[in-house]
């Protein structure tokens, strides 16, 4: 479905490449977690695919179409096939939930139709169906900024699906959410992708979430792919390759402890313990 060949990105004025020589293939229905330390180039990689960031090297193939090298108009048409979900939701706050959903159809309707909010009935039907599917039935006319974080991300997901995409790019969908909502959102993305056989690339900084929801994990470090394999094979050795040295066994224990976050006191204590007892760059077992 999606194939990246030798993809590279160097920001102007920067000594080091943000991405170098990334080869990646994502098949139909693949749900891939993209993990790596901050600054590894996860966001850049995901944005190079729909060219929100212009790659400086290599090729992006979506199906049989090469996205790199498309002209402005063709690029806009190609972007319709790629839905995107954002870290801080990226909703237009002063617009209603319905308008935010319909904005997913902007690539399909002309300027005046969109300006006058005269979308085809089929788009409106789809919007109502999606709202119900993500659990926001009855929220159509609420302003986006009146919703909670989890609800806002549901709107973000529904907007991306309004594009009827062939590929979903998801950039840190849970970064601004509490642990419980984060799981719900990941579960929703997972279900929706499976229902549609929709392949997805999900940037995550939370390794347990990646393990739980994504069968396949790609590890990125300093702009290079250092791991590409099943999430079940993520062990201390692989995590060290991706993130550098750290006491992974203890981290995993801490993660298990706050797995059911019913008692907030418990969870805070275990994170405090972790911060206090795990020295940085501790030797690995």
């Amino acid at each position: 479905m999606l194939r990246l060949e030798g993809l590279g990105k160097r920001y102007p004025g920067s000594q080091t490449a943000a991405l170098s020589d990334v080869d990646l293939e994502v098949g139909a229905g693949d749900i891939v977690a993209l993990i790596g330390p901050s600054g590894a180039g996860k966001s850049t990689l995901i944005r190079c695919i729909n060219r929100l960031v212009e790659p400086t090297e290599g090729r992006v193939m979506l199906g049989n179409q090469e996205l790199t090298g498309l002209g402005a108009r063709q690029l806009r048409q190609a972007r319709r096939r790629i839905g995107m979900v954002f870290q801080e939701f990226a909703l237009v706050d002063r617009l209603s939930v319905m308008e935010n959903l319909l904005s997913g159809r902007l690539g399909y309707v002309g300027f005046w139709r969109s300006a006058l909010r005269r979308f085809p009935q089929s788009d409106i039907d789809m919007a109502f169906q999606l709202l119900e599917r993500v659990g926001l039935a009855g929220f159509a006319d609420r302003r986006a900024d009146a919703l909670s974080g989890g609800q806002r991300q549901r709107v973000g997901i529904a907007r991306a699906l309004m594009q009827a995409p062939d590929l979903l790019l998801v950039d840190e969908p849970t970064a601004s959410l509490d642990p419980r909502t984060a799981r719900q959102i990941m579960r929703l993305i997972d279900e929706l992708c499976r229902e549609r056989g929709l392949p997805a690339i999900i940037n995550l900084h939370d390794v347990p979430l990646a393990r739980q929801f994504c069968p396949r994990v790609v590890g990125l470090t300093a702009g290079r792919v250092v791991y590409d394999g099943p999430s079940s094979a993520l062990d201390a050795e692989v995590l060290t390759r991706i993130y550098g040295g750290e006491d992974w066994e203890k981290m995993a224990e801490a993660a298990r402890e706050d797995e059911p976050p019913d008692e907030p006191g418990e969870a805070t204590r275990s994170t405090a313990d972790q911060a206090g007892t795990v020295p940085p760059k501790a030797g690995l077992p």
Partner: protein
Amino acid sequence: MNRATAAAGMTWRRPPVIANPWLRRGLFIGVPLYLFVALGTLEINWARVMAGMPRALEFLAALASPDFVSRADQIIDGVLESLTMTLVSTFLGFLLSVPVALGAARNLAPVPVYLTCRAIIAISRSFQEIIIAILFVAMLGFGPLAGVATLAFASIGFIAKLAAEEIEAMNPRPLEAIRATGGSWLQRVQWAVQPQVLPRVAGITLYRLDINFRESAIIGIVGAGGIGATLNTAFDRYEFETAAAILLVIIVIVLAAEYTSGWLRGRLR
């Protein structure tokens, strides 16, 4: 806890803004000295000040007894003309500002467009309204048309500059999201930019509306119509009571504009 290792009784002082002690002391002494010397170079003609005093007092006395009646027709005509000029010029100025503001926002426009639009803003802002009014009076003749042209032109610089700043400071994420859906440039502006900046831009325009009313009183003096022309005539005829009445009317209208625009801005959220 290793906080205990820090020694007790350490003093702390806010570091001086100017680190170099000589420069700091030099400035402390030099600046007042310069001001003192500069004051000395002003030539004040006390005799002329004394001669002008009675006229100033006469004018102040007139302010206490404004005459709204004897020139009522001219005052009403002048106010109406000024209000018309204000509304028309602000509306025109707003319409012309929109493309300039979009072009002057670095996050929307390519560099050549950006530089062109910034230049338009700079030109519009670099001249005081009076100078522009003199130019337009020469081009279009005496009367409110010149006034409208002046105020519309001056509004472009004001509204477009503040609106462009607002666009540059908006949250870039929604814009990125609309780009990602395949929206065109116009759709991005309409869906991601406009909802974010419209309340502030409306506020800026309302603010410009009451600036334009005040300016309409000034530019009338150089022949661009409105209440300023009436005011100028009153001064020319030494009708200080009428002039005082006009000033009071201007103050009341500016106050009213201030309160209504403040109220409107509060409602636009």
